[in-house]
């Protein structure tokens, strides 16, 4: 394999990894606060692409405005799901919340099938993203560079939000201990809502960029990325945002490299994430960045 080809695979891996990272953050933030796998996260990601699609095609918005509208709608959707499906079960056994999450995920998938139709729709890619640049003899889509760039900008914003603002401090407090946080005067429900909002916004950005990269959207498109990004979050250490980013990049690059180096194993690409998950859970259950959690008796 020549250096140029390797470089091309690497850029592909990095851009796929950034998408995984964006979605994985949503999982890790929700898990950090509620100790819950938000099964519906992958479907929130899918809905974002449909919002953007309809904003462009039905309402003829400029792509930039359409993307903003789509992100806002997705945030509302994410918060709405939390209010409807998770909030009533705050004190319920964990299994019930998990089942509710699975129910919410299936509801979104099937509602999307009913309302939008199951036939894949072509997603419009504005030419700004589609143009090619030639770099060291390799033709690369401009989007391939935009995706990691946008991801990094968002990550810096997120780091600021979590470490420097009051809401961020509230989030950190709630994820450490819900009861103590509420005794300190933190509005736990509001904090959880904000967490879902931020997670959904990142999923929306990830979703739109995903649709630009793989321009075909359909109601089940969120299932596999959703599962993989949860796995990325676990690999990085669930609950840790840095971990989710590392896990996302790791998984994305590994996937592209597997197909690049072993083309015969391409069919097993979707299984790779799960195999990695099991290996990680067996040997380092807390992931790369996770803190060791002791069990309370």
């Amino acid at each position, binding site marked *: 394999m020549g250096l140029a080809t390797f470089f091309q695979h690497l850029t592909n891996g990095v851009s796929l990894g950034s998408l995984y990272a964006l979605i994985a953050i949503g999982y890790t933030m929700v898990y950090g606060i509620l100790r819950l*796998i938000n099964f519906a996260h992958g479907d929130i990601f899918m809905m974002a692409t449909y919002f953007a699609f309809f904003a462009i095609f039905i309402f003829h918005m400029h792509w930039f405005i359409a993307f903003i509208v789509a992100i806002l709608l997705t945030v509302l959707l994410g918060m709405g799901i939390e209010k409807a499906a998770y909030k009533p079960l705050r004190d319920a056994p964990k299994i019930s919340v998990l089942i509710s999450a699975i*129910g919410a995920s299936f509801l979104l998938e099937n509602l999307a099938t009913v309302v939008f139709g*199951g036939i894949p729709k072509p997603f419009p890619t504005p030419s700004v993203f589609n143009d090619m640049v030639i770099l060291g003899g390799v033709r690369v889509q401009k989007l391939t560079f935009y995706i990691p760039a946008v991801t990094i900008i968002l990550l810096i914003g997120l780091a600021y939000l979590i470490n420097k603002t009051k809401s961020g401090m509230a989030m950190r407090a709630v994820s450490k201990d819900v009861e103590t946080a509420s005794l300190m005067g933190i509005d736990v429900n509001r904090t959880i809502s904000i967490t879902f909002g931020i997670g959904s916004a990142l999923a929306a950005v990830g979703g739109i960029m995903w649709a630009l990269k793989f321009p075909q959207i359909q109601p089940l498109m969120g299932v596999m990325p959703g599962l993989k990004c949860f796995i990325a979050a676990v690999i990085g250490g669930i609950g840790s945002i840095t971990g989710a980013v590392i896990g996302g990049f790791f998984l994305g690059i590994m996937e592209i490299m597997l197909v690049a180096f072993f083309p015969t194993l391409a069919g097993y690409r979707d299984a790779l994430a799960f195999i990695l*998950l099991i290996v990680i859970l*067996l040997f380092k259950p807390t992931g790369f960045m996770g803190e060791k959690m002791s069990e309370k008796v």
Partner: protein
Amino acid sequence: MKRRNLILNIVLILLVAVFTIYAQKNMDAYKLRILNLCAIYTILGLSMNLINGFTGQFSLGHAGFMAIGAYTTALLTMKIEFKEQIFYMKPLIYPLNSISMPFLPSLLIAGFLSALVGYMIGAPALRLKGDYLAIATLGFAEIIRVIITNAQSVTNGALGIKMIPTYTNLYWSFGFAVLTVVFMFLLINSSYGRAFKAIREDEIAAENMGINLYKHKMMSFVIGAFLAGLGGGLLGNLLGTIDPSMFKFVLTFNILLIIVLGGMGSISGTVISAFIITILGEVLRFLDKPMNLGFIKTPGIPGLRMVVFSLLLMIVVLFFRDGLMGTRELSWDSIQNVFVKFRKLVGKGGVKNESFEG
């Protein structure tokens, strides 16, 4: 009392047997298919309830075990000349291409193979808890599906297998369903069953009482996998065709819906709800088809049925968390209690009348 319950149980099983014979001889193919599905989903629901409801280990790997069961039974029971026809992309490997077995041994082999895979999956996965276990088992089911899609010389890949002999009839499905129910009652009321429930309630306390957590979790998981493989085998030989896309997460979701509605940790609840969900699934089929409401014609909306099912799951979890039965069981004593209460109510009315007359 015990003697009476035993007799009543035997009578009930005999009644089921009579009904099975009657139904098999007199009902049309459509009704038979639904009844078969009811029985198969009873087996699957019970197997999942054993792991999730009784032992409290949230496993989402049922579709994978069913796939193993369905493919094993299909490959073992198929006629050799059909095998050559179907595997035209890549020939089936030896020895599978030259055997054709009767149904019962194939089903049992399918069950044991599925149990073996369950053991191999359980060994690493059962060290995990809660949602980690859920995602790991879901991952294993997905890996099994990916392997089946890619191992073309064994499973015919994405093309699937057709012309599987349709051996499954009511005798097989109801027979195995009744056996499973009886087995589950015996298991749950044995010391193993009590250990399972102890693990569900509190793992640490159970361990302190001297229960070997790993052994019991593994036992429940392996038995569950065996039953799931059996159910998958029955399903494959009922439908006649199988392909990897059948065994997606949706299948696990349906079984999950059954045990949540019936009550996590109730055998009778699972049986009732398996029948309800399967029949409801057929009744609601009209939602996916074009409708003619006389004055207005709606086009078919595929997927609406699953919307109803997902809403149903969420409503049950949000508002009726115990489902139909919770962890209770329908027993002869509880039925008798209802009768006694009913008689008391009627009796009170009678007393009032007498005093009125007096």
